[in-house]
């Protein structure tokens, strides 16, 4: 059953100088108990969509409902059913313990003290907050602060939890613990987890379905496996030095769907991923750097991931898209 529904949802931001289209004709249906991923580069419209769905922002046009209630005209009915957390927010008040902060936030939902105690014990156990629950917030590491933020987002037993980059800047172990927690909450408590992220590995690991968003438009919405099957194409990866200013020597080859690169600053090496139309192009790809100053250190073929899906659909990787938006 769909619990979050959007129909032709659009949002524009107007300033004196220009108008920015943040969302355009977004149609989505997110089911109850689903871990739903909204994947896109920075500036794609993920946070705008979460803000509309969590009643912080009104759409310019179109409609969005959560549990059947309109987020525009019935925010007071939506708010008790939802919660949200972001990787960028401050966890709470520094000079108060994690437990004290959680109690305060529980009071925003009018939760009785005995129920609060049960929930905080359960959440503390699941998120392994343990001995840190009674420490003041300023004494907690980034990882434990984020665990507290996640616990805060579940303190009111919400039906839908909106998460905006919840594992950003976290160590591998903490990020994995949080991902496991989110999946368990969806499976055991039939909660819907609406996850906005640009972390493709995270999306692939935990999401039941993924919508790929670019420049305010939903490009596709399927399961990660079906996305890779339907839109994934083989990629050829090369480690080259010096890092190239442009990827045109690869993208100009007929049959190349797109390319993306990431920089290894320590080694002064760029890892260029070239998404191909078909495997026959490999020889041409390998030959391309010979006519330039690029030196190829290593190269290999890679099975399709969500990154190849995005490059296939857009023609560029997240990094290139974000640089375009910044310019």
């Amino acid at each position: 059953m769909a619990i979050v529904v959007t129909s032709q949802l659009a949002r524009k931001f107007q300033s004196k100088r220009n108008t920015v289209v943040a969302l355009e004709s977004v149609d989505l249906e997110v089911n109850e108990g689903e871990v739903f991923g909204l994947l896109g580069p920075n500036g794609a419209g993920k946070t705008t969509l979460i803000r509309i769905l969590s009643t912080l922002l009104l759409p310019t046009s179109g409609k969005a409902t959560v549990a059947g209630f309109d987020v525009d005209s019935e925010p007071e009915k939506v708010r008790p059913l939802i919660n949200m957390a972001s990787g960028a927010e401050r966890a709470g008040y520094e000079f108060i313990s994690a437990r004290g902060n959680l109690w305060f936030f529980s009071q925003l939902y009018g939760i009785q003290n005995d129920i609060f105690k049960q929930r905080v014990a359960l959440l503390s156990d699941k998120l392994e907050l343990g001995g840190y629950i009674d420490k003041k917030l300023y004494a907690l590491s980034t990882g434990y602060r984020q665990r507290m933020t996640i616990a805060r987002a579940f303190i009111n037993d919400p039906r839908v939890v909106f998460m905006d980059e919840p594992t950003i800047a976290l160590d591998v172990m903490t990020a994995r613990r949080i991902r496991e927690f989110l999946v368990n909450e969806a499976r055991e408590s039939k909660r819907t987890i609406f996850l906005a992220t640009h972390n493709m590995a995270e999306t692939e690991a935990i999401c039941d379905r993924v919508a790929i968003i670019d420049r305010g438009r939903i490009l596709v919405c399927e399961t990660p496996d079906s996305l890779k099957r339907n839109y994934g194409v083989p990629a050829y990866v090369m480690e080259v030095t010096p890092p190239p200013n442009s990827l045109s020597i690869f993208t100009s080859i007929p049959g190349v769907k797109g390319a993306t690169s990431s920089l290894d600053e320590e080694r002064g090496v760029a890892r260029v991923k070239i998404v191909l139309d078909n495997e026959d192009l490999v020889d041409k790809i390998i030959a391309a750097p010979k006519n330039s100053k690029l030196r190829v250190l290593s190269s290999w073929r890679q099975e399709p991931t969500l990154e190849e899906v995005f490059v296939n659909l857009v023609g560029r990787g997240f990094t290139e898209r974000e640089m375009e938006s910044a310019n």
Partner: protein
Amino acid sequence: MYSRAWVRVRSTFGEPAWLAVNLSVPLLSSLAMALLYGSVGLSKYTGFAILGGIMLAFWGNVLWSMASQFNWDKEEGIFEIYLVSPAPITAILVGMSLGGILATLPSATLVAVIGWLFFSTSINPSWPSVILTFVLTLASLYAMGMLLSSLYLAYGREAESLNNAIGEPINLLSGLYFPSIGFGSPFPFTIQFIASLIPLTIGMDALRKSVFYASGVGSVWFDLVTLAVMAVVLLYLGDKALTALENRGRRQGTLVVRLR
């Protein structure tokens, strides 16, 4: 409401530096004024300075710890947690006010005890009138704080400049340390009229009458009614402004400012 008050009190007493500032600023300001009065042979007015120090603690709390903390919450991402919850923003602000009053009581008490012990100031209070005036002054002051908070919702950091700009003029006009309206005021009628629009001015005037001249409720009834009306009007305006600005913020996308 109660929980936000608890956060305010716990935060104040959880940080020794804040506590020291809260305690020392009103105390030192009022002691300086009291010493000045004493040094120019106006010892009988040192009580005015002590009373001013007590109320300065609360006024400072309205300006800095309430209105600006709202902006701090907004910039740190906590404000959006409030908005996403079903709790009304007005209740959160009333909670901040109550917490502010409770957190300020120790510094106000310290000024009173040290001031009156050190300067042996004589008082002649009408306690029912003192208590009623004090409560209504705080109610109107914190209602004004709520209205100022709505400015932060609308203008964010730009409101901080306004806060800075109005702080000292209000200190002067409200007569924290001297009578700024009525008998003994150094100001012309026009300035006195403007000053009397500030709740702190009416409150300070009525408090001086109640604390030092034994003016009962019957004598300061007009001040009390004025303060009560101001409290109700400011509370109403604050509530309406917050609702209107929240709706405007949802339309324009200005509710959330996060420092990444």
